[in-house]
């Protein structure tokens, strides 16, 4: 089921999307090789989540072309695991974490689960396997509304992984997590990427927790996007060109990058309404 490692998992040419009369982005050229861990970066409202939805075929392009896993967007969604932005389950939701993961496996099938014992055992084994993979065994049997945000995020990653997808789309999975959890989830995602040879596209607001693991970044700006290795893209020169305004990238002594001057407020957790 995997695409050949040399093929591009995502390939966009001069792509543009307009939503409600506003151009979200245009002249977008993007090529993401299969099996790589890629971050989508950019300021608030740059259309990061829209890009993810376009890849899933949920939002149509208004110009240009886009191929996903070698097909039209949406055609191979069964090979894509998706984790939408900022979901947290209602504290009163009385459904277990394992049920949420199980829905990722066969929740889109009609009817009730078939009672066949072998089929059920197989499904349960796969669910247990991914829960083990994300280290969620300790709380997967508790109601999902009652576990912490970091634990919910792991359950959701397990849900996205359960069908052995060729590609994972993670929309700000680190957001709303505390720093130790951010580091742990980033390491987990990178481990899965390497171990399973999976393409991972992660939308991130802050690149630093994932910086050590990234193969490529795609930086979205007003004039399209720049793709390349983090060292190439996250530089004062490249970003100033992308935004057409002076931008400075500072290197902190601990290796973290700080982008100064991009057109957005400098806070981390403010793009709640981007769609």
């Amino acid at each position, binding site marked *: 089921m995997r695409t050949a490692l040399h093929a591009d998992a995502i390939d966009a040419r001069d792509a543009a999307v307009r939503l409600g009369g506003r151009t979200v982005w245009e002249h977008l050229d993007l090529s993401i090789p299969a099996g790589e861990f890629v971050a989508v970066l950019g300021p608030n409202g740059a259309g990061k989540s829209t890009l993810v939805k376009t890849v899933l075929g949920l939002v149509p392009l208004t110009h240009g072309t886009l191929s996903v896993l070698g097909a039209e967007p949406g055609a191979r969604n069964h090979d894509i695991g998706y984790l939408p932005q900022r979901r947290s389950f209602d504290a009163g939701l009385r459904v*277990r974490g394992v049920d949420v993961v199980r829905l990722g496996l066969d929740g889109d099938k009609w009817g009730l689960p078939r009672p066949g014992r072998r089929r059920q055992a197989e499904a349960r084994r796969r669910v247990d396997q991914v829960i083990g993979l994300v280290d969620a065994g300790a709380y997967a049997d508790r109601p999902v509304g009652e576990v912490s945000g970091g634990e919910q995020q792991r359950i959701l990653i397990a*849900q996205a992984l359960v069908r052995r997808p060729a590609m994972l789309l993670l929309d700000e999975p680190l957001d709303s997590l505390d720093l130790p959890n951010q580091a742990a989830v980033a390491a987990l995602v990178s481990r899965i990427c390497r171990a399973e040879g999976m393409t991972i596209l992660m939308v991130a607001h802050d690149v630093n927790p994932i910086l050590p693991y990234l193969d490529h970044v795609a930086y979205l700006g007003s004039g399209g996007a720049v793709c390349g290795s983090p060292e190439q893209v996250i530089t004062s020169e490249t970003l100033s060109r992308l935004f057409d305004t002076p931008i400075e990238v500072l290197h902190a002594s601990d290796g973290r990058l700080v982008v100064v001057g991009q057109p957005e407020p400098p806070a981390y957790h403010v793009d709640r309404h981007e769609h």
Partner: protein
Amino acid sequence: MLAVAGAHFTWNLADDFRQLFEFPFMVNAFRAGTIVAVVAGAIGWFMVLRRQAFAGHTLALVGFPGAAGAIWLGVSATWGFFGFCVGAALLIAWLRPERGEGYSEESSGIGVVQAFALACGFLFVSLYRGFLNGINALLFGSFLGVTNGQVLVLLIVGGAALTALAAVGRPLLFTSIDPDVAAARGVRVRALSVLFLVLLGLTVAEVSQITGTLLVFALLVMPPATAQLLTARPGVSVAITVVIGLLVTWLGLAVAYFTPYPIGFFVTSFAFAGYVGAAALRRGGRRRVIA
């Protein structure tokens, strides 16, 4: 309300049982109650999970102007119940904002429908003078006047609603918990939400003909709310819901048979006691109770 002449509760339970089923109207009341409890429980379970209790409550109230209007026009109240409840379900689905599947966003549209429906009910009642006795039956039900034909209609509509629910059960659960991911997996989120509202309307229309427009909501919301307090396993939770619905309905019918008080009061009170008991159990054993 009942207190059939000659019905006396004794401590000889076998004799009580014999008394209970002595009359055909009681047999039909149990038949209708059983169907109603199962269907309302299963549909209500999803309603509670989807936080659509307000929609369910509104659809229940809409049955009142529906039936009143049908009687005013001189047709069977059944047509009024089904027409208005399903129509209102479609209206609520249509009024719901296009973007976002957040159930909180639909509340204002539902409130509008509810207010208008009640106003229509008042109009129909005042247009049809001398109707006042009928209001009681519309609001509080007519468990004891159920005919064989009505039981058959209940069985057919209830069976159809349950079959449809079973057919979409899994994707419906998926969209109820996780609409974004379900949509990405190709589940028709919006179509399912319209379908569910229609099923809810059908169920309410059928159930409220027996229970009245007030008691139907009790059967829709109380058993599932109790079951969801007790367990977080979806399958077990639905089963507990149906069992609670059956128990409170049967018990309510039996107790009402031997007392002069209304069935609806007993059914609701037993369900309420169950809910409070489950809440106390959870609060007391929050650490111990597993999922």
